[in-house]
């Protein structure tokens, strides 16, 4: 009992000594509790027959009813397939592109030219998807878009790119590569800058060509960065990017464009089915977390650094 009071007294002394630091930290703790942990508590909605008037606590439990319903829906499998295919395509094409870009940017001899190139290719990252989507819709329009006007001059019938299902995924992947690859290359360039220059000198003495140096020095030098970013990316495999999909989506391409994020919005917010919308969201979050943990485990197993 006495030791307990002594310990409590010491803790109070410590807090008093550091009171300004704890005071400074208070808004941050409150912020994360309210804006991040409250919504995590909110996932309980998925297990309840949620009613706004009753709130989360007083709505009746329904257990896994929503999940059972979801797994019985054919729509669900369509959406799952769309999210997964698009996620994999974004991974296969979108992930290596910034790495390649960084490798070749690093090979530019003129530093001034390199800087200008970097400035230009970072630009699209700062422009909203609404603007990019607006440009795409208008460039690709069958009636007034430049692409079709040009095809028309070649005698090709207009193509309604955003309505034909086979063009949707390539358009999404290409536009996000165009928008984000430049910005994505920063982190790899920084990693390349950290490679010991002696390794390049040794390779030069051995008579290695530029391509060989890229392959045998630069690439191994940034391997751990690539792995960390790949793990993080795998955790996002089911997140296709709401804003991009949303602006490019229309009733005619819905069959391929409806992904988990837009589906949760449509059933939850537009349809007002809060419990089911939460279920869809929770399912995606859990899949993402599983992918992240698995990827990290595989990295560790291959004797690489994981993310923790």
């Amino acid at each position, binding site marked *: 009992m006495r030791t307990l009071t002594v310990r409590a007294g010491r803790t109070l002394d410590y807090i008093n000594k550091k009171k300004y*630091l704890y005071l400074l930290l208070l808004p941050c703790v409150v912020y994360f509790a309210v804006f991040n942990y409250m919504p995590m508590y909110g996932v309980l909605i998925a297990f309840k027959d949620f009613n706004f008037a009753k709130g989360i606590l007083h709505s009746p439990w329904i257990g896994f009813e929503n999940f059972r319903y979801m797994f019985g829906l054919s729509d669900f499998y369509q959406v799952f397939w769309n999210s997964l295919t698009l996620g994999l395509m974004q991974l296969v094409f979108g992930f290596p592109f910034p790495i390649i870009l960084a490798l070749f*940017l690093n090979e530019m001899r003129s530093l001034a030219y390199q800087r200008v190139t970097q*400035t230009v*290719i970072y630009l699209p990252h700062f422009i909203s998807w609404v603007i990019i989507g607006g440009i795409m819709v208008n460039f690709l329009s069958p009636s007034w878009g430049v692409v079709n006007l*040009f095809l028309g001059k070649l005698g090709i019938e207009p193509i309604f790119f955003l309505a034909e299902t086979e063009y949707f995924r390539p358009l999404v992947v290409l536009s996000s590569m165009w928008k984000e690859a430049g910005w994505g290359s920063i982190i790899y360039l920084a990693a390349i800058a950290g490679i010991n220059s002696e390794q390049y000198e040794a390779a030069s003495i051995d008579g290695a060509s530029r391509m060989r140096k890229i392959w045998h020095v630069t690439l191994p030098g940034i391997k751990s*960065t690539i792995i960390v970013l790949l793990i993080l990316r795998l955790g996002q495999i089911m997140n296709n990017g709401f804003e991009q999909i949303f602006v490019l989506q229309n009733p005619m391409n819905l069959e391929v464009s409806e992904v988990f994020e837009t589906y949760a919005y449509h059933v*939850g917010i537009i349809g007002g089915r*809060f419990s089911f919308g939460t279920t869809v969201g929770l399912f995606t979050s859990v899949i993402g977390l599983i992918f992240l943990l698995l990827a990290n485990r595989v990295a560790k197993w291959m004797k690489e650094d994981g993310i923790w």
Partner: protein
Amino acid sequence: MNVRSPADRIFDIANYAVLTLFSLACLFPFFYVAAFSVTPYSEYLANPLKLIPSRLEFGAYQQIFDMPVIWSGYRNTILITVIGVAINITLLLMSAYPLSKTDLKGRNVILMLITFTMFFNGGLIPNFYLVKSLHLYNTLWSMILPGALTAYNLILMKNFVGAIPRDLEESAFMDGANELKVLWRIIIPLSKPAIATFVIFHAVTQWNTFFSAILYTSKRDLWPLMLILRDLVVEDGGIARDVMDSAANVSTFTVKMAVIIAATLPIIVVYPFLQRFFMKGLLVGSIKG
């Protein structure tokens, strides 16, 4: 030693050519939109690849700036940008300093809980419900508060503050200063480059606000610029019909091009000044949370 082999030369030429092409591809759409926002529509239809108009027409700009909805969009966007950045930077600085103290008790637990939010979140509906229950729905705050502080940026800022040499602080403590004074007099002035970076990042994020506006507002007078843009340019919604119905003899296409430029211009104008703030080191420190 510095003699370049033919293979080297070919490599260089190909490298410069490909990277230059990609740079041009990054700029071209904006240039194109700008060109056709001041070109008569008939010239566009005659030759959509003619980038230099025979005469400049600013009628489309006049028309969009005559629309009250554009001004309310600008007002909302500027408000959520300015207030959002102020809140974001204040929270970042207040939180990063104590979190950079490795010996502070409880710090590791808090940091872990913050990092966890990067990998798991409640999802769309629980966030929507939170905004509703805090009575932020249909207020500008719904576009300011959620996302005002993110784990990723906080960890970056914490790493930056943690790299400031300790002895600077120690001497201030010797002189009897407390932590608040040290934060104000030493940490904040030394963090200016990081602060500038986050001001820019968050300002751009806020300027581009779209997702939270779609989710958390239902009134047109609360719409930020990006929602108005979507209605006009992507959806051909109510605002686009107003444009078509108006008697002005500017084509809807030209108005769309003009409104894209009007909404993008602030970013393009400040963009060249951003470059010097992109701190590679700041980004790299973050990879390992």
